[in-house]
């Protein structure tokens, strides 16, 4: 039998909050952890971005890298890392704020609603495609490529086990345990 890993390890709040993305705002603790609704609470704790902009960016993040198995909190953490970088970088902050404003304006033009209110994913993706060659999209996409997928707590949900040397490698943990190949 192949040794498989639990795609949904129990993610206790304390363990999650000790995660690799750095210290989290205290209000996140009070808000009760990892529920999807936490997004707006997180956004209140954005240090550089306006709360509304942070909420929109979390939606943008999911539209760029849509994984239905992944709760919003992982997208929010990636956005908060971008927010943290913007605290000491006014150029970045302006790029993000102006990018969100432009996206909302485009959404109002085409769908009579700000970006967050555009119900259909394909409509939101069309809005992103229209700006995908610009600096705002490239910055958000490039930052997410690292900060979203590099969250260790995310990895088991994709079946990735991460660091192995401390467990003695895979020599006794299934490096060759595939059991479904045709017999040749």
């Amino acid at each position, binding site marked *: 039998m192949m040794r498989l890993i639990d795609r949904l390890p129990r993610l206790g709040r304390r363990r999650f909050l000790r995660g690799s993305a750095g210290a989290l705002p205290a209000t996140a603790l009070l808000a009760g952890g990892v529920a999807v609704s936490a997004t707006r609470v997180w956004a209140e704790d954005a240090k550089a971005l306006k709360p509304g902009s942070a909420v929109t960016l979390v939606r943008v993040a999911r539209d760029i890298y849509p994984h239905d*198995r992944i709760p919003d909190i992982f997208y929010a953490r990636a956005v908060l890392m971008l927010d943290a970088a913007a605290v000491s970088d006014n150029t970045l902050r302006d790029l993000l704020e102006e990018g969100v404003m432009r996206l909302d304006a485009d959404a109002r033009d085409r769908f009579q609603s700000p970006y967050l209110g555009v119900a259909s994913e394909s409509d939101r993706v069309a809005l992103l495609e229209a700006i995908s060659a610009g600096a705002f999209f490239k910055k958000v996409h490039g930052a997410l490529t690292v900060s979203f997928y590099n969250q260790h707590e995310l990895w088991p949900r994709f079946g*990735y086990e991460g660091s192995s040397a401390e467990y003695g490698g895979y020599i006794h943990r*299934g490096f*060759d345990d595939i059991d479904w190949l045709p017999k040749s």
Partner: protein
Amino acid sequence: MAKFDHNDDSLVVIIGSGAGGGTLGNELAQKGIKTVILEAGPRYEIADFVNDEWPSFAQLAWTDMRTTSGTWQVAHDFPNLPAWIVKAVGGTSIHWAGASLRLRDWEFKTRTVYGHVPGANLLDWPISLAELEPYYAKAEFKMGTTGTNGIPRLPGNNNFKVMAAGAAKLGYKEVHTGNMSINSQPRDGRGSCQQIGFCFQGCKSGAKWSTLYTEIPKGEATGNLEVREKSMVVRIEHNDAGKVNAVVYIDADGNMQRQKARVVCVACNSLESPRLLLNSASSKFPDGLANSSGQVGRNYMRHTTASVYAAFDRPVHMYRGTTMAGIIRDEGRNDPTRGFVGGYEMETISLGLPFLAAFLKPGGWGRSFTSGIDDFSNMAGMWIVGEDMPQETNRVTLDPVAKDKFGLPVANVHFDDHPNDIAMREHGFRQGGAVYEAVGATRTFRVPPYPSTHNLGTNRMSEKPRDGVVNKYGQSHDIPNLFISDGSQFTTSAGVNPTLTIVTLAIRQADSIAGMMGRNEI
């Protein structure tokens, strides 16, 4: 441990401590020749390596500014990261996967065998396989290469088993876990492979050969080798007679130092080696050192590469175990009926989730991208590595604008794929996909080249001085006591991973240098 004086003009000074420089340093030290290695990067030990792709990249990779141009996709996807190589003691022998294949006989004489290929600057090596065979044997023994010297091959991991099952369905014959310089059993004071994965991030068990913990400490133990870390060489100097006599470098504290030398060996990998020669231009050598042919920096090769990943309906966990212990060799032959000259290997490869996200489709997003990532645990992967054509216009030059922190021009790397490269890559994509589809792949991914790990040819060997930079010993045609000791001396790239040949040439070069010094020729 040796500590030599800056004014000691009896030393061999080697610039770079990777597969070429680190091996050469030990070989010379074993012969009693006093040698200094200057390494731009810091010295880590095995305990410092991390099984975590981005932090490891930040720790080890050479990320100093470089620029790119040309139509190759790397210039679009990674404009300031043309190469994925290491800045640390041990150089890219920390990052390499361990695949250790000899060049084939005909790969030393491609101008003769392939004939004239339009646009290609093909040239036969000034050396034959027969001449190198004794040195290949020494290299394989030194490195503990599996499948040689009675050393058993590594066991195959899940990723290999998928590839091998598909290869069998397609009728491929030469399929195994490779000739790997990774211990399959304890040897030379190092343990055997624990199937950790993360071969690219520095081997945590030390089973994989790297100069960092083999050649370098052995050389240091003789008392004849000093390795200076964080020492970035900025210029090689020469005397009025046109012989090199010193190197100027910035030390760990940021101070400029000048180390006198009897012999200088350049082993900085194929981007920095020509850059250093070009940045060392003088009134006597206005086009850069060793460059009377105009070939310094030209004929840059990076192998025709690509990857094929495939998703299955059931799990694979490709990242478990040795990354590159798996090979299909049948396409390595030269068979122009396939539509290209030269051959390629198919070798297992895997990436962790963070790097797969970065490399699966650079710039990709949306559901067509993320549905691939969702298949991570059910994926298998292979790397295609084949011969690419040397072209005079594919070259490393000094960037006219960008400077490093010392004010020196950085390397610009220009590359255009040759039509032969494109035809070979397309063939590899097709065959690689077929291997996986034969065992039930539900989706295959054609992944474009990563930043180059195999950088070759920019100071190439030639019989005639007008055709290249160095002779068959890696000795420059123009300056007898200046040697090239890395993959930049390759005349052509051949279709196999280059490290074994770099080590082989370094062992041979040590014999040559010792002989020339003994005869007072240099």
